[in-house]
C-alpha cells in the first residue's frame, strides 16, 4: 500500500512537472478527466477496454450512429444504406469529410479498413466485433458494399458501434502501433499528445462534419490515468480533475452530499450472474449443480433486492434473464425466482443435500458483491471455498470447464441485441456451462433470422428454457456513477461511453 501511494504521489508530481496546468478548467477551456485503467493501445481495434471505447467515439466515426437516447440509427460517415441481399449491405458515403491529417474520406478508406480488420491474420483484439464481415467492395468513390460471411441481423448495430473508419494511406504506413501513438480519424476530437497508458490530450476538431454526434464544445480534453479511486477523489477535491467516472456507489453517495459536485448515475448493459456447472464438466464429484433442484435453490438463496439496494444502488435493477432487458429479443416473460431461503433449503434437502455441500466459488471483480453472495449461499448450507482470480485466468479455467460455481458479469460490448449475451454463452462454446441442445437449436434460428418477430419468438423460447432449468442465476444490472464539478454540464448515456461532444461548461 505504501509503495502504491508513493507511486501515485510520484506520478502526480511528474505530471505537475510535465506542465499540466494545475487548475485547468473553464477559464482555459480544458476538461481534466481521469481513466482508472491503463489504455493499452489507443487504436480501437487493438484494445478491449471501456476507456478504449471512449477514445474511439471521440477520435473516430463509424458509418452509422445509434442515438443513445432514442436507439435510432442515423447516418454518420454514410448518409444512407440498404440491404442488397441477406449478406450484402450498400452504403452511400458522406462527401467532403477529411481526416485529421487532411486525407479525404472516401470509399477507399472504407474498403481498406473493412478488409484489414476482417482478416483474422491482422489480429484485431475483439474478433467478434469484426469477424462477421467478409470483405468490402468499392462501387464508386462514394458508394461501397460490405459483404457478410453469413446472415447477421446485428450488422447495423455493430457498424454503429465498434467498427470505425480509418484513413487507408496513413494506416497502411503507420499500422496499429503508429495509430496508437499518433491516432488519426474523422472524429470530433483529434489527439495532440499520447503518453501510452498514461496521458492523452484531445483537441477540438474545428472542421468536424455535420455529424449526429453533435459538434464539440470544449476545446481541450486532458485525460490522465489515475488508478486509485481515492486519489481521483482527492484530485477532484483539489481541482486538478473535473470529471471522474466509474466511481463506486459508496463514495459517490458521499460526494453527492457535497455542493461542489454533480453525481449522475446511469445504468449500463453489464449484467452480473452466477454460472453453474450444469453440464457437469468440472471435476467435482458428485456434482450437485447437475441437479436442477440445486440450481433453483441457488436462485432462491440470494437476496438480489438487498444487494441492489445496498451495494450497487443507483439505477441498477434485479435481472431475471441472461441478457439485459433493453436488448432486442431479451424477452422478460421468463421464470423468475424470489428470495426464499427456506424454499432453497427444502430444494437442497429434496436433492439429497439436507446438510448442504462445499463447492469452489470463483469471482474476478467486485469482491464485496461476491462475498455477499457467498454469505447468502452459506446461509442455506452451500459452503463456499472462495477464489478471486484475474479475469483472464478465470476465463481460461472456465473454458476448460473446471469451474463449478462462479460470479461473472458480461457487458455485451454495449450491443443492444440479445445475441451479444445469450448466444455468446449458450451455443455450446467453451464457455457454455449448460450445453442444452434445445437452447442451441432455438438460438441458432433466432441468431440467423432476418424476421424480427421470429427472432423474438425464438429468443423467448431459449430464455424460457434457460431460466426454467436455472442454468444461471441472473442477478442484477450494473450502473456507473459520474462525478463532475458543477461547472460541467453532462448527461451520461446508458451505454457507459463518455461522450465529450455532449459536454459543455455551465
Amino acid at each position, binding site marked *: 500500500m505504501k509503495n502504491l501511494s508513493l507511486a501515485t504521489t510520484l506520478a502526480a508530481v511528474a505530471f505537475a512537472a510535465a506542465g499540466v496546468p494545475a487548475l485547468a478548467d473553464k477559464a482555459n477551456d480544458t476538461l481534466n478527466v481521469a481513466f482508472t485503467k491503463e489504455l493499452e493501445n489507443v487504436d480501437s481495434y487493438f484494445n478491449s477496454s471501456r476507456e478504449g471505447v471512449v477514445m474511439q467515439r471521440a477520435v473516430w466515426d463509424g458509418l452509422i450512429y445509434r442515438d443513445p437516447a432514442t436507439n435510432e440509427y442515423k447516418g454518420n460517415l454514410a448518409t444512407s444504406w440498404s440491404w442488397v441481399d441477406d449478406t450484402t449491405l450498400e452504403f452511400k458515403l458522406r462527401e467532403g469529410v477529411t481526416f485529421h491529417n487532411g486525407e479525404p474520406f472516401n470509399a477507399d478508406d472504407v474498403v481498406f479498413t473493412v478488409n484489414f480488420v476482417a482478416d483474422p491474420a491482422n489480429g484485431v483484439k475483439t474478433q467478434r466485433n469484426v469477424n462477421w464481415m467478409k470483405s468490402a467492395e468499392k462501387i464508386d468513390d462514394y458508394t461501397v458494399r460490405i459483404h457478410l460471411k453469413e446472415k447477421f441481423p446485428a450488422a447495423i448495430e455493430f457498424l454503429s458501434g465498434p467498427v470505425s473508419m480509418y484513413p487507408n494511406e496513413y494506416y497502411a504506413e503507420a499500422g496499429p502501433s503508429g495509430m496508437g501513438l499518433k491516432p488519426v480519424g474523422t472524429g470530433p476530437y483529434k489527439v495532440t499528445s499520447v503518453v501510452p497508458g498514461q496521458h492523452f490530450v484531445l483537441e477540438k476538431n474545428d472542421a468536424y462534419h455535420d455529424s449526429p454526434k453533435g459538434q464539440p464544445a470544449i476545446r481541450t480534453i486532458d485525460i490522465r490515468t489515475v488508478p486509485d479511486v*481515492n486519489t481521483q477523489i482527492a484530485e477532484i477535491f483539489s481541482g486538478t480533475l473535473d470529471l471522474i467516472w466509474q466511481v463506486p456507489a*459508496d*463514495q459517490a453517495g458521499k460526494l453527492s452530499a457535497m455542493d461542489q459536485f454533480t453525481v449522475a448515475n446511469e445504468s449500463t448493459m453489464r449484467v452480473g450472474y452466477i454460472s453453474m456447472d450444469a453440464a457437469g464438466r468440472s471435476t467435482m464429484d458428485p456434482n450437485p449443480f447437475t441437479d436442477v433442484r440445486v440450481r433453483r435453490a441457488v436462485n432462491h438463496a440470494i437476496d438480489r433486492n438487498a444487494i441492489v*439496494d*445496498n451495494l450497487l444502488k443507483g439505477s441498477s435493477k434485479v435481472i431475471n434473464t441472461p441478457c439485459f432487458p433493453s436488448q432486442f429479443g431479451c424477452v422478460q416473460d421468463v421464470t423468475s425466482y424470489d428470495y426464499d431461503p427456506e424454499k432453497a433449503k427444502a430444494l437442497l434437502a429434496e436433492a439429497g443435500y439436507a446438510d448442504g455441500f462445499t463447492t469452489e466459488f470463483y469471482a474476478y471483480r467486485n469482491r464485496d458483491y461476491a*462475498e455477499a453472495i457467498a*454469505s447468502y449461499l452459506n446461509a442455506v448450507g452451500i459452503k463456499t*471455498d472462495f477464489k478471486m482470480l484475474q479475469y483472464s485466468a478465470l476465463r481460461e479455467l472456465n473454458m476448460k470447464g473446471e469451474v463449478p460455481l462462479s460470479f461473472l458479469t458480461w457487458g455485451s460490448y454495449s450491443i443492444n441485441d440479445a445475441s451479444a449475451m445469450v448466444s455468446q454463452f449458450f451455443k455450446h462454446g467453451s464457455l457454455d456451462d449448460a450445453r442444452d441442445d434445445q437452447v442451441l437449436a432455438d438460438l441458432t434460428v433466432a441468431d440467423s433470422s432476418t424476421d424480427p418477430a421470429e427472432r423474438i419468438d425464438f429468443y423467448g423460447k431459449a430464455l424460457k428454457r434457460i431460466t426454467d432449468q436455472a442454468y444461471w442465476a441472473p442477478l442484477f444490472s450494473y450502473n456507473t456513477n459520474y462525478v463532475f464539478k458543477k461547472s460541467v454540464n453532462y448527461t451520461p448515456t446508458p451505454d457507459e461511453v463518455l461522450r465529450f461532444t455532449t459536454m459543455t461548461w455551465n
Partner: protein
Amino acid sequence: MSDLSDPLLQEITGPTPGQLLRKRVFGHQGLIFGLAVVAILAVVAILAPVIAPHDPYAQSLVARMKPPVFLGGTWENPLGTDHLGRDYLSRLIYGARVSLMIGGIAALISGVIGTAMGVAAGYFGGKVDAVVTFLINVRLAMPVVLVALAVVAILGGSLTVVIAVLGLLLWDRFAVVMRASTLQVRGREYVAAAQAIGASTPRILLSEIMPNIVNNLIVVVTLEMAHAILLEAALSFLGLGVQPPTPSWGLMVSEGKNMMLFEPWLVLIPGAVLFVLVLAINLMGDGLRDVTAPENRS
C-alpha cells in the same frame, strides 16, 4: 549458632536468583507491556466465541458501515460494521485468532528448520557448515514477499498455504543467528569437558549448547512471529492471503481501503491493532532477551 563474621555465611543472605529474576522482569517496562498485550490478545483469540458480541460472518446489508461508538455509533456494534454489515469488533476478535495462529505456527516451523540447520552448521563446521551457509545465501537471495506472492498465486490463498509458505520461508534468520551463537559456545571449556567425559553429540547439543544460546533464539522467535503476522496481513491485503469471509486484519484493511477518504476508521482500527500487536511482540522479545541473557544471570 552462626558466626556473623564468617564471610561465607554473609553472602547467602542476599536475594535468591529467583528474586533477582522477578526483579528484573518487573523492572522491565517494555517486557511487561509486551507480555500483557500478547497475553490479552491470546486470551481474546482463544475465547473468541465467548467474547465476540456477534457472529463475525453474519451479514446485514441494510446495516453497512455503521460508525464505531466513539464516532457516534451505538453500543450494538461498538466498533461499527464493515462494508457488508458485519460487526467490526467480532471480526477483529476472530482476526486475532488468524494473526496469532499464523504468527505462532509459522515461527514454530521456521524455528525448527532454522535452529536445526544453524546449530548443526555451527557445531559440526566443515562441509555441513558450507552446505548450510550456501542454503542460507540462496534463501537470502530470494525476496520473501515475491516468493510468497508467487507461491500463493499458484497454489491459491488459504490459511494452510499461507502458514506453510511463511513457515518454509522465514527460517533464514534462525539459521544465521543459531549458527553464530553455536560457533561462539562450541569452543568453551564446558563443551570440551562434556566431550572429554564421552557425552553423546545429542546430549552435548541439547544440554550444553542449547541452554546457552536459547536467549538468542527467543529474540528471533518473536521477531519472526511479528514478521509472519505482518506478511500475512500484507498478503491478505493484496488478496492473496487468507480468503474471505475468514476475518483477517490485513483483509479488513484491504476491504476498508476504498472508503479510506470518507470512513478512515475502517482502515485505522485493524491497522492500529496490527501495529500494537507487532510492537508488543517485539518489546516482549527484547525484554525476554534482556532478562534471560547469561551475562545478566549472576
